[in-house]
């Protein structure tokens, strides 16, 4: 029946498959979820990076984004909730040759793992963190996250969120990250470029990706279809490179400031450790 698709060549394999665990596809993420696109951008960035893929390790926590490590044909670790960063810290210090990337969600990294995030940033641990922010806990059916905008509804804020959310780039910059960027999933080229820059950066680099969760957050906040939600984030985005991340708060409505906010050089934890040993 699919043979009837007009002008389409039916394939079994995708050019990116060599970096994917094909036997685990299709993945568990919902139709219209932005996570798959983040993974595509990550794989595309890997293809452009001059790295030995045997030395690239992906660590995830728990949640929808936490499943990312399991779809990549790399050494991958799916750890406990919130603990991806300290686990990654151990990997990096155990074998400094490894290129360690943490891919996890806003709930995992900012709530239960918030302390680890700020301390890894403070130490300038040589890690890249890709924080996919869909403003809620998607895996457990859409509860309040520390990134949920004020007044937004979730299953555990049915009357509207009474809290102020974390501004991820501001938090990362304030606590010492050497590279900070934010994009939405529709900024595929820019996101890919930021992932490349972040992975080439020595030190703690953070890329926040705004992603729709049409199944829960979108539905609770009447944002329409997945496509409409994605388009909404993209349309509301204003690229403002090198602007003050303190101004990059995300509200329930209003603009979303994206771009590269921080790109600085300073000694990493390993640099200082080696210096101290001598």
């Amino acid at each position, binding site marked *: 029946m699919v043979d009837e698709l007009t002008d389409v060549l039916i394939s079994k394999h995708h050019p990116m498959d060599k970096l994917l665990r094909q036997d685990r596809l299709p993945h568990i993420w919902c139709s219209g979820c932005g996570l798959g696109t983040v993974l595509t951008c990550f794989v595309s960035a890997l293809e452009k990076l001059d790295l030995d893929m045997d030395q690239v390790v992906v660590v995830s926590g728990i949640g929808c984004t936490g499943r990312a490590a399991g779809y990549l044909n790399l050494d991958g*670790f799916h750890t*406990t909730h919130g603990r991806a960063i*300290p686990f*990654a810290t151990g990997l*990096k*210090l155990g*074998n400094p040759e490894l290129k360690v990337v943490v891919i996890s969600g806003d709930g995992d990294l900012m709530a239960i793992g918030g302390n680890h995030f700020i*301390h890894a940033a403070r130490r300038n641990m040589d890690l890249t963190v890709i924080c996919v922010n869909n403003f809620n806990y998607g895996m457990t059916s859409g509860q309040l996250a520390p990134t949920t905008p004020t007044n937004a509804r979730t299953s555990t804020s049915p009357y509207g969120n009474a809290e102020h959310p974390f501004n991820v780039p501001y938090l990362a910059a304030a606590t010492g990250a050497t590279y900070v960027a934010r994009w939405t999933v529709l900024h595929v080229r820019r996101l890919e470029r930021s992932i490349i820059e972040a992975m080439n950066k020595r030190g703690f680099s953070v890329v926040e990706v705004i992603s729709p969760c049409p199944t829960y957050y979108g539905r609770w906040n009447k944002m329409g279809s997945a496509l409409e939600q994605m388009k909404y984030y993209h349309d509301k985005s204003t690229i403002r490179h090198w602007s003050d991340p303190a101004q990059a708060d995300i509200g329930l409505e209003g603009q979303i400031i994206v771009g590269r906010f921080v790109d600085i050089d300073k000694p990493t934890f390993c640099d200082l450790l080696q210096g101290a040993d001598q």
Partner: protein
Amino acid sequence: MGRRRVSNNGILQGSFFMDGDTACAEGAICAGCRFFGGYPITPATEIAERMARRLPQVGGTYIQMEDEIASISAVLGASWAGTRAMTATSGPGFSLMMENLGLGIITETPCVLVNVQRGGPSTGMPTLVGQGDMMQARWGSHGPYETIALSPGSPQELFDLTIRAFNLAEKYRTPVLVMTDEAVGHMTERVVIPPLEEIEYYARRKPQVPPNGYLPYRPDPDGVPPMACAGEGYRIHVTGLTHNEKGYPDTVSVETQQKLVERLIRKIRANQDDIIELREDQVEEADVVVVAYGISARTAARPVRMAREMGLKVGLLKLVTVWPFAEERIRELAPKVEGFVVPEINMGQIAQEVERCAGGQAQTILVPHAGGGLHHPNDVLEAIKRVTSPQSTSAETSP
């Protein structure tokens, strides 16, 4: 400081006067530990301090993490990077580590976790001794599993058992707990560090097949799978979810869960003859056997001697390995003895195990201590006398 020699590789050798915590750190270094992630906590801080000073001298890495949860997570990560890794803590930190201890167990990550026990619950008595975490060591993380816990009673034993803990961790691919206590950790005594070549070193079992034929969780006949680490080209996937032999999550299959959990438990239980270490003193001919571990085994020596001087036939069974529990040995002794006396610095934990294994064939008398000090010899002696006096028949394990 006695005959001391620091070899070129930074490893100590000779006879030293050091406290238990320091001996623990030196044992770890001799065992090949090259990563320590920790967080200061009384009375385990000296282990972290010693490691912070010593690890850079032997090419290792010390990092003070932001809390104990981060510490154990970093230790697991370092182990997967191919390093021998450890952390050390006490009660409150041990509680924080429980979730990731479970991650270490299900992902079969070799590492060593030292708990220098103090008086609890909660912040309790930070500077004073306790043995209240023994059941937490066994059951503290959620879900069904089996664990290995060793209990040293002197600085020298803490040195020796830390080395053993690393070797057991590698051999059975599991976190191993060294359940020491404040009294041992802060006790300063002679510690002999043998030449490095005389120290046992169990190397990590590596896969013998190329990456495309490797199943990360397919066990060898003894139930332990060979371990490929990150960066070795095996492209492993490691998850805390229930997983199949490939390491892939399979969270809806009862069969996969059963197969995994059974193997995790079997690889310890089936090898318990190798894991369980007991020290027995006149147990065979005894009417009363004092079962103790850690510092309590040491303090039990005096009441045992006093009882023998009174003409009682008393043996001392020291549990060097507390978990897995020496079930077979207690079952074997139960019909031959009148009773077991279990002094421990808690309100009855291992005593319950002894009573369970005695199965009503011999009485079990707990000598509890709420913590903060050691048993008075008379308390243990009284319990021994109670077993042998005719009016006492029923088992008593509640305080």
